[in-house]
């Protein structure tokens, strides 16, 4: 295989590649061996630390699956609320009225600049008995959802704005030419196409939201997937094995979503019906982290 950076390897390059591979395998093996022997020393490799995940279905029915459901519930609900809110904000930012543009712009930039965790902590304090008195058993859930909605509606607003701006100018001009009003142009011509164009970006934003729910478990007592590690480890004293399994579940769910996003992107880019405007997962500012982006938390 040839690429920008190197030619198809000849006989000497092939030998060199084998040598590099060999060195890498040895180094990687050493690190792995060191890690495993350290884990063995602390008894983390003992069979009884790992078998519960296979033999004891209670680990799954009592902890992991309910935790995953809470995570998915908070993620899906946040997305469902943040989507229309973000769409409204995104359109507001494209408004013809300078005042509306400025106000919405300030709101969006403000909530994009604040870490999600702080928005969650703030919501949690807001829902406290003194102020709004949300029942204490559902308070962590609502605090997490509120925090995620505030942050992600701002991010989605930017996605929507970028989606509308990515459309060819002729679309709006044609709508104007046949006598459509501003609102009609937006709802009948621009938005439907923008939504299609930004589907991949939205699906990958869902990954960011799902990852961020883990913050609520760590600091607000929300019973999501990651927070289950404490309870499982308390029962079986298998911290590392539990972390490992929980990480695998997150990776499986998020990897599926990422794959769906890039499949959508490819499909939309390839289809002849669209205007060709597609907003990829990486094309919107502020990858989160977790991350919050893409680079979210």
């Amino acid at each position: 295989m040839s690429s920008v950076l190197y030619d198809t390897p000849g006989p000497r390059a092939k030998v060199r590649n084998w040598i590099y591979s060999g060195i890498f395998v040895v180094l990687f093996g050493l690190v792995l061996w060191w890690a495993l022997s350290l884990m063995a020393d602390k008894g983390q490799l003992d069979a009884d630390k790992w078998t519960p995940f296979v033999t004891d279905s209670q680990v799954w029915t009592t902890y992991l699956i309910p935790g995953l459901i809470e995570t998915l519930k908070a993620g899906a609900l946040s997305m469902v609320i943040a989507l229309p809110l973000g769409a409204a904000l995104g359109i507001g930012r494209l408004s013809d009225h300078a005042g509306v543009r400025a106000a919405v712009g300030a709101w969006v930039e403000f909530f994009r600049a604040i870490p999600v965790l702080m928005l969650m902590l703030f919501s949690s304090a807001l829902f406290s008995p003194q102020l709004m008195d949300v029942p204490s058993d559902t308070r962590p859930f609502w605090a997490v959802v509120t925090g995620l909605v505030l942050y992600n509606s701002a991010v989605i607003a930017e996605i929507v704005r970028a989606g509308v701006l990515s459309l060819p100018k002729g679309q709006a001009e044609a709508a104007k030419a046949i006598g459509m009003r501003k609102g009609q142009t937006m709802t009948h011509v621009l938005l439907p196409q923008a939504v299609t164009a930004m589907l991949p970006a939205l699906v990958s934003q869902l990954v960011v939201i799902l990852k961020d729910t883990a913050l609520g478990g760590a600091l607000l007592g929300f019973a999501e997937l990651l927070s289950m590690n404490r309870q499982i480890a308390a029962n079986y004293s298998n911290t590392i094995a539990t972390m490992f399994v929980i990480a695998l579940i997150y990776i499986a769910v998020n990897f599926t979503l990422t794959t769906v996003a890039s499949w959508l992107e490819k499909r939309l880019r390839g289809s002849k019906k669209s205007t060709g405007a597609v907003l990829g997962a990486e094309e919107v500012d502020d990858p989160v982290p977790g991350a919050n982006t893409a680079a979210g938390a």
Partner: protein
Amino acid sequence: MFDFLDSGQYDVLGAFWVTVQLTLYSAVGSLIWGTVLVGMRVSPVPLLRGFGTAYVNLVRNTPLTLVVIGCSLGLSQTLGINLGGETFKETGFRLAVLGLIAYTGTFVCEALRSGINTVPVGQAEAARALGLSFFQVLTLIVLPQAFRAVVAPLTNVLIALTKNTTVAATIGVAEAALLMKEMLENEAQAVFAVFAVFALGFVLLTLPTGLLLGWVAKRVAVKR
């Protein structure tokens, strides 16, 4: 309304200083780790490419919170790796930086990889025709141009990193989010004021960064 700031009970500036330090150390570390990763991902050795791809895909899909808590519970408390930290405070800070580097490095890697794609093929071909090796082509010709092309995406990664340092609160590092949590609990009557203080702190940290690096991005971009 803001009298809780004068009580001397809370060291807001100190907490934000920890946030800044977390950001700086992690930024330098993840820039290095991300460059190494991208070197692997574009290298001619299939095994290295495989490792780079697997690492990026696995870590990017794991919550940062899990990475950081994993460092604390797994590495430090279970396996006893404290990264040379003497006290709980020192260890927590170093573990948080390690977790942030491991996580943010993947985003740096992906940003750089898109930058490598902006370098015209002809340049690498010309460099190869001169007899430069893969390593020379990468470090002398391609990466310098790629870096200049990705200042803007890297700025976004840096801003996300700044916000992500709050995750260190989950392992007890005394940075802004942890102090905010404490203050919200103690000053229940001033919820909005407390939030305003910390929100302002973050706006002050991220806004100038974005503006400054946005200007830099325009200056250094390779005109083609």
